[in-house]
């Protein structure tokens, strides 16, 4: 291939330093080090705005195998701050691929490291909790890197959605179907694709949009998107959701949107020790008793102790750790899920939620 491997280092805030080879752009980047257990879908993960500012470590060793393609993105550019891999493939093979993942990363200035023992790091995070880290191919001094990792701002209490939301409202799809107003806190493109595929008219609004401005578009449904950061420090967004509850328009929230809806209803949210990040999480639908295998990506969760039947019913539950995965609210029309029914990457088991929501929206027309 004719390239000189460039050394790179990954330093954790607790002093752990590992050496590897640089991939993607050269340079330095930091963030909270988290891991994802999906065995396919690396490009969707890298471009998921919910991961904004996080260093993504893939547990599956071979990454880059099938190259990169514009259709496999969830945003216009990578959202993670860096990528950590065990055995990166610069060479790739897939009929659809447009370029190598290395090129894609380089083009977008995304740094990464390969050749590190990701399994050991995963176990380390599992035991010690998530922590900040720095990756660099320019500074290879251990002490300096650890210091940088320690100085990196903590995700805890950080509002990040405003960094990934769109700057201006835009129309994603224009049809005669139900009109869905999407509050963009970092919405994954596949949520928009899914609504559009179901015939909806979709307009995307910046996260800080005043409700009246969104209502001016006369939507049939208000959707609160996924996104990065701590929902507890988003008072304007929570207030906006609370206001929306009064409108009678059906509400739907995914991930961060789910947490915002819970907070607006007076239900608490807490930061998890280690979040859920993967495409194999079993979620039980409490109404049907059926299980969905779901994609998840969250470090915060709804506190079960603060859910009372006056506020909401638990509609979905995680079978691994019994955390709350979905709420059906009392007092207004709407529901929300912690996981990602739009998948991408991951199983399509939960697509039905979009259809249920649209039914709710079309009924409310006559309400």
């Amino acid at each position, binding site marked *: 291939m004719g390239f000189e491997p460039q050394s790179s280092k990954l330093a954790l805030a607790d002093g752990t330093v*590992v050496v590897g080879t640089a991939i993607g752009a050269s340079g330095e980047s930091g963030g909270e080090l988290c*891991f994802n*257990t*999906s*065995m*396919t*879908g690396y*490009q*969707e993960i890298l471009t998921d705005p919910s991961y904004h500012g996080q260093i993504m470590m893939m*547990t*599956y*060793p*071979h990454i880059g*195998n*099938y190259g990169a*393609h514009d*259709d*496999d993105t969830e945003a216009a550019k990578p959202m993670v701050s860096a990528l950590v891999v*065990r*055995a990166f*493939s610069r*060479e*790739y*093979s*897939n*009929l*659809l691929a447009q370029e190598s993942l290395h090129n894609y990363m380089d083009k977008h200035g995304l740094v990464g490291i390969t050749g590190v*023992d*990701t*399994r*050991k790091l*995963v*176990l380390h995070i*599992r035991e010690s909790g998530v922590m900040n880290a720095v990756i660099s191919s320019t500074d290879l001094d251990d002490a300096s890197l650890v210091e940088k990792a320690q100085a990196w701002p903590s995700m805890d209490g950080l509002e990040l959605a405003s960094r990934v939301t769109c700057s201006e409202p835009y129309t994603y799809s224009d049809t005669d179907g139900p009109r869905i107003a999407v509050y963009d806190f970092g919405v994954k493109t596949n949520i928009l694709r899914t609504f559009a595929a179901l015939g909806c008219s979709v307009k995307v609004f910046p996260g800080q949009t005043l409700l009246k401005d969104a209502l001016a578009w006369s939507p049939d449904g208000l959707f609160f998107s996924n996104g990065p950061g701590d929902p507890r420090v988003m008072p304007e967004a929570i207030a906006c959701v609370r206001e929306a509850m009064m409108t009678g328009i059906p509400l739907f929230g995914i991930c961060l949107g789910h947490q915002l809806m819970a907070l607006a209803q007076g239900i608490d949210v807490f930061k998890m020790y*280690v979040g859920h990040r*993967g*495409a*194999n*999480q*079993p979620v*039980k639908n409490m109404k049907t*008793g*059926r*299980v969905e*295998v779901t994609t998840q990506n969250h470090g915060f969760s709804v506190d079960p102790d603060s859910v009372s039947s006056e506020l909401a019913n638990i509609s979905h539950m995680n*079978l*691994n*750790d019994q955390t709350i995965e979905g709420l059906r609210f009392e007092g207004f029309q709407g529901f929300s899920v912690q996981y990602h029914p739009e*998948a*991408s*990457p*991951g*199983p*399509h088991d939960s697509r039905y939620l979009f259809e249920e929501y649209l039914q709710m929206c079309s009924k409310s027309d006559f309400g």
Partner: protein
Amino acid sequence: MPRRTDIHKILLIGSGPIIIGQACEFDYSGTQACRALRKEGYEVVLVNSNPATIMTDPITADRIYLEELTAPSIRKIVEKERPDAVLPTMGGQTGLNLADELQRQGYWEAQGVKVIGVDIDAIHITEDRQQFRDLMEEIGVDQARSQVARSLLEAKEVIQSLGGLPVVIRPSFTLGGAGGGIIWSPRELERKVMRGLELSPVHEVLVEECVYGWKEFELELLRDSNDNVIIICTIENVDPMGVHTGDSVTVAPSQTLTDKQFQHMRDTAIRMMRSIGTFAGGCNVQFGINPVDGRMIAIEINPRVSRSSALASKATGYPIAKVAARLAVGYTLDELKNDVTETTSACFEPAIDYVVTKIPRWNFEKFEGVDEELTTQMKAVGEVMSIGRTFTESLQKAWQSLEIGYAGLGADRENPSRPSVRERLRRSYWDRTLQIRNAFMHGASMDEVYDITRVDPWFLQRIRMLIDLEKALQRLRLQDVTPEQMLNLKQHGYSDVQIAWLVADEVSEEEVRQYRLSQNVCPQFLLVDTCAGEFPAATPYFYSSYESATESPISDREKVIILGSGPNRIGQGIEFDYSCVHGVQAVQEMGYEAIMINCNPETVSTDFDIADKLYFEPVFWERVLDIIEHEKPKGVIVQLGGQTALKLAGKLSERGIKIFGTSHELMDLAENRGKFSEILKELDIPFPPYGMARTVYEAVRVAESIGYPILVRPSYVLGGQGMRIAINKEEVERYVTDIYTLLPDNEILLDLFLNNGIEIDVDAVRDADGDVWITGIMQHIEPAGVHSGDSTAVLPPYSLSESVIEDIKKYTIDIANRLEVLGLMNVQMVVQGDMVYVIEANPRASRTVPFVAKATGLPVARIASKVILGAKLKDFRDEGALDSSLKGYAIKEPVFSWSKFPEVRKELGPEMKSTGETIVFVDALTDSHFKRPYEMRNLYLSR
């Protein structure tokens, strides 16, 4: 829904004798199912005719019937046992076919027996090509396109509409697919279409798009009664379509699919499973993808536990058969816990953070004239699986596991010439991955290799990368290899033997080992946990990799390592796994921690809840030594795992590692023909005149002095490989030349062949006090000259005089004592008139151990293993634990897989050819199971 309470007693149907395509994976799944059902409080009745299985052990089921797998025999058992339900999905196609046959007869319904775990009507759909095609069309699943043609003109039109050649043609309604095949070139077109049209009684042919060379994938699914479906594992075949998946090198998880492509496959698989009935259980779906346009088509669906489910279970740690059995009795997936983590749900899709490679193992050398090309008909007799953190590491470990003399993917011998590599690559042969490597070594380009093999470029890229590593090493002396280079090589799976061969200077494997240890390059042991490290796991299931931390903690208990028998092959199959599993249990009962090392995914011994610790690793010296150095066991048991384990005895002994059981020196004495004959002479035991030779000339001289017919064979081989009976000088010359082409540097043994002799197999156990227990004396029905593994053996002997039997016993005891056997021994003798000749003695577990155990009702292997660890036979004898329960005779019948090799002549000789066996109990010698083989005993004897 919790477990069903309307059923109490369940009949489980096994898969019978091992044949190609249906091997010991069904012992693994059946055993798991039995154990799971018993744990749930059900009474399990098991029927299987294969004595060499763990599932037919009293430890596995409540009632065991070692009976023929036929409808009448099942009826007899049902009428006696009155089970409430039958679970037929654990017994392969045999089990399903039987259940189906009885269903058609209305038997299950009439008897009030519920069929669980499968929907019989669903099976019919999957097995009828047209019904399946119609159903797939109905649910919108794409398949290979096809159209019927009634004339040459129509055929040409169809071919054009399918996008041109190649195409497959299938004449309608011909028997066994006669006249069908692939049309590659326009030249063949007219001839093959016309022939098809003529052969078809309705004069039409189905012209089908040819999917040869397409990418091939397999998904393993589980479904519960609530219609929840999960995908346990995705397997990608390295060999493209055209090679049976059982003959393909396969990898898990899939490597070259984007998430969109994979989810499309997942959705389709789930839709397919939901379309075929409503059963709760396991299922396997195969897909093909056209590498040119990415089109995905469904190939087939198997609504039962299969060979691939055994592989998927071992690859992910998810116990498919165990869960499938519990689903069959009514549980839903969300009610079950993941056995591996013990805390999370069983209703999830395993995430793995390593690469698994499976390579099949073949036995072509056993079948003269066999067509070695791999096709859509499976030919492999066994398989190995390996786990590594990368594809290259896993691939090389798989080659080390195969035990065919390779220390990895080549790089351990001179590269074959360019033309020979090219010739070998042209068709699908068993060593394709190796030949791809060799082609790159000769400078072949990616495109060239892809064009010939159609192996996905991603795999080719990984293999080519190895060449760069190797070339960099060729100029270096060992001492110049840096720690970083060394680590990199080890991370790509190179063994010390390969590294020794690759470096510029002459160094030994041991020197490489010492050098890398001094560089602190040593393997770590990682956990197979189903969840890529997301949750802590409780199961002691490990693999080695060159990473930075070990996850296999060392307990403070005394440990014993049991070496497994590696891949199944003719001559060393499931029987040895049976002995190993009993060995593990004996070790545990004697108070030790039992550690298992094996690489065969089809076996019970590699189930993670059999031993205290399982290392899924090649039974390859370097890997075994790594584990020994990590675990520091009190000792190692080598006599249970066949030649695979035994082969390592010398090296263990040299290192001062304790071998439990007969010492290596004394084992070697038995193997060494010259020394063994002296012992026999010393003990005054007759043996046929013999001689040894190292050249053809010498062999002829020896033969002339001994006389004819004479048995010619290489020393140190298994299952009689290369063994022939010569009747004259010319034949001796020819056979010895043949042996030397195949096995150069081997010593040739020549024994006088005892014409019309009666062959005897004796199994015995000796303890440290010199107490010898003869566990069984078996008389073969076929004359000496037919390999003992291919003979029909009767226990006890049916036509020997008292004095002959006394001699047999005396010789056995004398040999056992002289060789200071500790544990198992097998002696082969030939009786001619009143004379008893000893042919050979093997101080190790033999193929007949499980047969004798099942015939006598005694856990022979377990008692022997305890004896190895210091128990005394006297104590067992005093308790009556050595008293046989056999009444009448037990007959071991060999089973062959001839139908897989139609081009091979069906003949029996000194080289073993059978793949499996059954046991039959008869009261008297008038029984047809005795009479028939007895009357035909000379029929197939050849040389």
